[in-house]
């Protein structure tokens, strides 16, 4: 049975890798759909918490795949999911790097970028919305989400600061018996 879990991680994250325009922050809804809804490997709140932990660690955002792999199948799952998430997009990048010689004035690259940037940003908003619903933190949770979003939008402070503040406020309000 172990083997089929690893095989599934390869298939799931290997295909998501090529859909991750703008990085893993574009594919949170798809990862949620496959891992929580189709495979039933964890419930939505657990997924949202793993997402939060991946945001806390340093490094590229593809580590959402790593921590999902870890939760499902330990260190082996972490390594397999990470490799599956990195390999297809990296091979494509390598091929493009060798195929395209002149990036700067390449009209094709400009048009692809022009087309993908708005889609990537729309998907990023979708990721945030899906993560907010999955968090299942109640009405006050939505207030925390909105406040963190507002601070991130308005100031250039390190994103970990509003995230830590949001967590502390949520815990404080809960401790006061208000949730």
């Amino acid at each position, binding site marked *: 049975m172990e083997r089929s879990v690893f095989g599934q991680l390869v298939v799931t994250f290997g295909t998501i890798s090529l859909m991750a325009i703008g990085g893993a922050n574009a594919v949170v809804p798809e990862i949620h759909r496959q891992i929580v809804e189709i495979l039933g490997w964890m419930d939505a709140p657990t997924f949202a918490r793993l997402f939060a932990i991946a945001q806390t660690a340093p490094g590229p955002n593809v580590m959402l795949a790593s921590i999902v792999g870890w939760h499902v199948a330990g260190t082996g799952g972490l390594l397999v999911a990470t490799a599956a998430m990195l390999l297809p997009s*990296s091979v494509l990048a390598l091929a493009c790097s060798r195929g395209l010689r002149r990036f700067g004035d390449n009209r094709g690259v400009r048009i692809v970028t022009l087309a993908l940037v708005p889609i990537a940003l729309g998907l990023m908003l979708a990721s945030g919305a899906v*993560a907010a619903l999955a968090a299942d933190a109640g009405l006050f949770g939505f207030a925390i989400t909105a406040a963190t979003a507002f601070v991130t939008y308005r100031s250039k402070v390190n994103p970990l600061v509003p995230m830590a503040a949001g967590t502390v406020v949520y815990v404080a309000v809960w401790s006061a018996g208000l949730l």
Partner: protein
Amino acid sequence: MSALETAVATSPPSLPELFTGFLKIGLMGFGGVGPVARHIIVAERNWLDDRAYAELMGICQALPGANTVNAAVMLGDRFRGAAGALTCVFALMAMPLLSLVALANIYDAVSGHPLAQVALTGAAASAAGLILGTAARLLAKAGLARWAWLMAAAAFVAVGVLRLPMLPSLLVLVPLGLVAASLGARRV
């Protein structure tokens, strides 16, 4: 010759230099690796000048996958071939993955505790806000044309509201975007 080629042609860094550079990028990238990557690649190591870096990030944006990972692949390959690409990606991911394992073990140890449950729920709500705020900021400064706003809205509604599977959504949205972008680019 593009700025990127010119930069690569002069004294390419060695594999150990690439390794330590990307190790540092991975290690310092708390809350996002983008700014750290620019600082180390351009300011600290002088691997690329600003223009060549902007060129590199331009192509990385047009590809799937995290920008920094793609940049690691492309820079590594340009400087030292496939071995360079592997070195850069491995160095970039090594420290973040170790930190992640540490965090995951802490999570495992505390996740049964009620207070930890509450904190994790709060963190999950905040993390969602982080993504929403970042997306809003990027949207505000992207200077999108009207068709591009429509594309962004369509992507959000399809995947975020209707919760449609992503592959068919992209198979519709990306060709539409490409057509709109080439028409838009011609007009300008």
